[in-house]
């Protein structure tokens, strides 16, 4: 029985394509798909038509198993649509509605048609519902996947952006830390700093934590490890950017950083220059001395 039902469904889709697409588009636009202006009517129409044609081809091959190769083109199309919906900023509901809103027009078409016996109608409708549900869920999966890819890409970009080692002077490096120091990022930070110490033969590394919102025991432990590793490589560390509230909190926590620390990066830089026997002087000489 299912064999013929599917083939007949395919024929129905072919016969009534125009009216189904028309009704589907109406349902979609009442659902607000076109209102936001993120997608235009001709584009939506093309998507609807190609989806119906894909579905028809798949059904004509006597298959209602969405995992079968017959459904590969339809699924590819849905994946593309989900991806573009995710990028265009459609909500998950709006994206899923693309497939789910086909149910009504399709069921209407089945009712209008005389291809099915009255006593088989419920079975046919049930099959259509199952099929569209599976495809709708597939759409959601794809939508979710593309959103996650966006998030993963952003995470990578952030972790790359936020760990630069800056050369302040010959032998003086600065590491401005920004954001949360979770273990994964701390690892990257530590490697970057140690590598730069070797490359530049640095004697002093300033770790600036102005941009770290919370210093708890784990953050402190990461800092201490970085300082210890730098010391083993012959570089002294100065920790700067310890704000008053952070200082008080650290005292209450019982944390001690056995390292020179300064309130601002400028202070730390001054200490570094002093250690290197250098000083910053004004270019303008005093006019009274010239006279």
């Amino acid at each position, binding site marked *: 029985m299912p064999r013929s039902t599917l083939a007949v469904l395919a024929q129905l889709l072919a016969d009534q394509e125009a009216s189904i697409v028309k009704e589907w588009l109406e349902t979609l636009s009442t659902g607000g798909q076109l209102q936001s202006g993120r997608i235009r009517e001709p584009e939506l129409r093309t998507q609807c038509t190609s989806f119906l044609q894909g579905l028809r081809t798949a059904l004509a091959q006597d298959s209602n198993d969405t995992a079968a190769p017959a459904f590969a083109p339809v699924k590819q199309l849905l994946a593309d649509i989900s991806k573009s919906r995710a990028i265009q900023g459609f909500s998950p509901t709006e994206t899923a509605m693309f497939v789910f809103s086909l149910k009504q027009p399709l069921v209407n078409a089945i009712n209008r048609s005389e291809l099915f016996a009255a006593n088989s109608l419920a079975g046919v409708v049930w099959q259509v519902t199952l099929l569209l549900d599976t495809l709708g869920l597939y759409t959601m999966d794809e939508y979710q996947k593309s959103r996650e890819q966006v998030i993963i890409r952003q995470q990578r970009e952030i972790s790359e952006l936020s760990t630069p080692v800056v050369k302040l002077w010959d032998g003086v490096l600065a590491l401005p830390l920004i954001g949360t120091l979770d273990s994964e990022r701390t690892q990257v930070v530590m490697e970057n700093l140690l590598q730069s110490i070797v490359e530049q033969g640095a004697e002093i590394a300033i770790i600036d934590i102005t941009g770290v919102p919370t210093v*708890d025991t*784990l953050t402190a*432990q990461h800092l201490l490890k970085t300082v210890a590793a730098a010391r083993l490589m012959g570089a002294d560390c100065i920790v700067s950017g310890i704000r*008053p509230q952070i200082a008080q909190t650290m005292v209450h926590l019982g944390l001690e950083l056995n390292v020179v620390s300064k309130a601002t990066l400028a202070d730390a830089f001054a200490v570094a220059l002093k250690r290197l026997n250098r000083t910053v002087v004004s270019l303008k000489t005093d006019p009274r001395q010239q006279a």
Partner: protein
Amino acid sequence: MSTTPPDTLPIRTSDDVVFVRQQVRLRAVQAGLGLVDQTKIVTAASELARNTLDYGGGGTVTLSSIDDNGRRGVRLVFEDQGPGIPDIPLALQDGYTTGNGLGLGLSGAKRLSNEFRIESALGGGTRVMIARWK
């Protein structure tokens, strides 16, 4: 004065710890806590959330804003269903840890808050309540 209803957040991954910190800071700002008090409660929350995750095997935190006749503050309750703490006074000693941390988190959190209560049953999980008043 309207207070935000209590909020229960999951602690399952280290990203959740970051989110808990952000939410606690938001509550602390709403309660009118000063910058130092904000930092203290956020840091204590960070320690306890990480304990919940690392030693309790994950759990939840309930954030509530408290208002005692105009005296406002933030109360946090961390709960897990982990193995529990066999010796609480020992766990509260500075430098004692069963993991590889500094052993300052639990005792530090106690010093950072105005109220601190810990209940733990072997095999029955751990519940830590802290509060910071304005």
